């Protein structure tokens, strides 16, 4: 051991600390084995379906939603909890718990970026092997971009933020497993209701308030595609406000004083926007479910 005296207490601006910490957390996120597994499986699955001619391209988003989304949720949970054994020393540092949480939330940009890359690759695949026009059902280019963005980049970001929320608020063993099960049950049950009764407003509302939804169903013989109710653009906004709500809820855990008040106000505003966006998503888009056939003709689906 050597000894030299360096009284050199730094005095950094909080924003600078958040940046540095977010950089560290992002690096840890990007190197986490589970995240790398998620990326790997997303790539493998993408390659496998690249020249697939079945007319269900609009459901491609389930790939990053699952592999990037669900696994990122577990990764961010683990990263958040990873410093718990060192909590005593961490708590004695000048950087607050809120700042640490903010950095962890920013690390959610890593799976979001992976989602963006997946999205870009998918558009390249579409350019090389273009799906038949009827396969897009009634969705125009903007709708499709909203759908795919929600199912890739936003799914990655939102899941990572949800992992931080669970880690900050639920301190019992298996909390993340329970959260993943609840999330999957929520998503699947919403799709199930819509599948049974596509024209119902309840089904649409359940789908539009779920963190993931599909928009079409292809008939077993691939002869037609049913478009379900809802507005992709408003649903995307709804998901973005859920992301903001999750980040706010996570940071609220250790916040005190004025920071707490600000976070509560931001959270309240996000909740209002989320409700309005969910309403708009449910009532927007097409009025009734439609069926698009191979010849491009469309008809109303009155009964599933």
């Amino acid at each position, binding site marked *: 051991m050597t000894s*030299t005296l360096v009284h050199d207490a730094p005095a950094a601006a909080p924003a600078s600390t958040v940046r540095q910490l977010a950089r560290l957390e992002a690096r840890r996120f990007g190197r986490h084995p589970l995240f790398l597994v998620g990326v790997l499986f997303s790539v493998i699955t993408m390659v496998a379906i690249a020249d697939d001619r079945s007319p269900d391209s609009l459901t491609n988003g389930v790939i990053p939603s699952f592999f990037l989304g669900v696994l990122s949720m577990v990764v961010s949970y683990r990263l958040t909890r990873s410093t718990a*054994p060192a909590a*005593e020393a961490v708590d*004695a540092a*000048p950087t607050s718990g809120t700042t640490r949480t903010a950095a962890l939330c920013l690390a959610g940009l890593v799976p979001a970026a992976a989602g963006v890359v997946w999205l870009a690759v998918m558009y390249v695949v579409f350019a090389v092997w273009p799906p038949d026009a009827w396969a897009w059902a009634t969705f125009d280019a903007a709708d499709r971009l909203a759908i795919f963005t929600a199912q890739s980049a936003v799914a990655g970001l939102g899941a990572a933020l949800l992992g931080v929320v669970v880690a900050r608020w639920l301190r019992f063993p298996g909390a993340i497993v329970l959260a993943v099960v609840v999330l999957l049950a929520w998503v699947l049950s919403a799709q199930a209701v819509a599948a049974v009764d596509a024209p119902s407003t309840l089904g649409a509302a359940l789908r539009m308030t779920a963190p993931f939804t599909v928009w079409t169903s292809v008939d077993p013989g691939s002869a037609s595609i049913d478009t379900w109710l809802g507005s992709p653009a408003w649903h995307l906004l709804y998901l973005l406000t859920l992301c903001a709500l999750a980040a706010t809820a996570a940071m609220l855990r250790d916040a005190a004083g004025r920071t707490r008040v600000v976070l509560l106000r931001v959270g309240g505003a996000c909740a209002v926007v989320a409700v309005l966006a969910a309403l708009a998503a449910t009532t927007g888009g097409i009025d009734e479910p439609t069926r698009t056939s191979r010849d491009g003709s469309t008809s109303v689906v009155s009964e599933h």
Partner: protein
Amino acid sequence: MTTSTVSLSGVRKRFRGTVALDGIDLHLRPGVTGLLGPNGAGKTTLLRILATVLPADDGDVRMLGRDPHDPRQRTDVRRRLGYLPQELGFPRGMSAFAFVDYMAVLKEWDDPGRRHAEVRRVLDQVGLGDIATKRIRTLSGGQRRRVALAQALLGSPEVLVLDEPTTGLDPEQRASLRHVLAELGRTSTLLVSTHQTEDVAALCDRVVVLDEGRVHYDGPVTDLVATAAGHVWLSAAPDAAAQVSARTGSGRYRNLGAGVPPDGEEVAPTLEDAYLLLRGASAATRPEVAA
């Protein structure tokens, strides 16, 4: 006279029905102060309050002239504080460098170049410079303890609170660590809790003995040792009347107490003798114990 850098007046802390600290008055200045006391004496509670991770229930705490109860002042204190908890775990998969680097970011070392240089400096200081990139889980207990210590040394803080820093270290590492801490004590205020009285004797100018949440002794180490003069005897057999009797390496018995054992030879007391005598009847050791 130097102003106190750490000042506690009438500090109390309870955990449910148990009194951990019962009216602690303590004023520390730059230098190394040892904190001794049996298990459950309140040492760790006291250190956690000084480390600003635990609020006192009652009384006044001032660190570097600031009140840790106030959030802004607490942050200011933390900028100038180093803390080694009694038990410190590490995030899985991190190397020694990565962990100390992470702690350095939390301590607001935002310039990566300067931060990395500082991380390397403290790792060198605790003798881990060569194995900084090894994963912590592959390190020995003593090496892990030194990683924990390294994070506390970041920035050579003005106040350093160390809870059993020498646990798990071999004699050579302990001697080396004493040298590092002695250097720091020339300008910083160090409070070192330990069960190793020889560390206190070798390192500290001052010692505080805590028992049942109260300060039982606070003064120079030499004064405490002096209280045991004339009460320490070597004899061929254990003295049943002694307060403490323990076999030494030479095969003779070291007896502590007021009475002179048959064939007793008076010897110079150590800090441990004085500490055990201070604790008196509450000391756990009875005749015919340690071999």
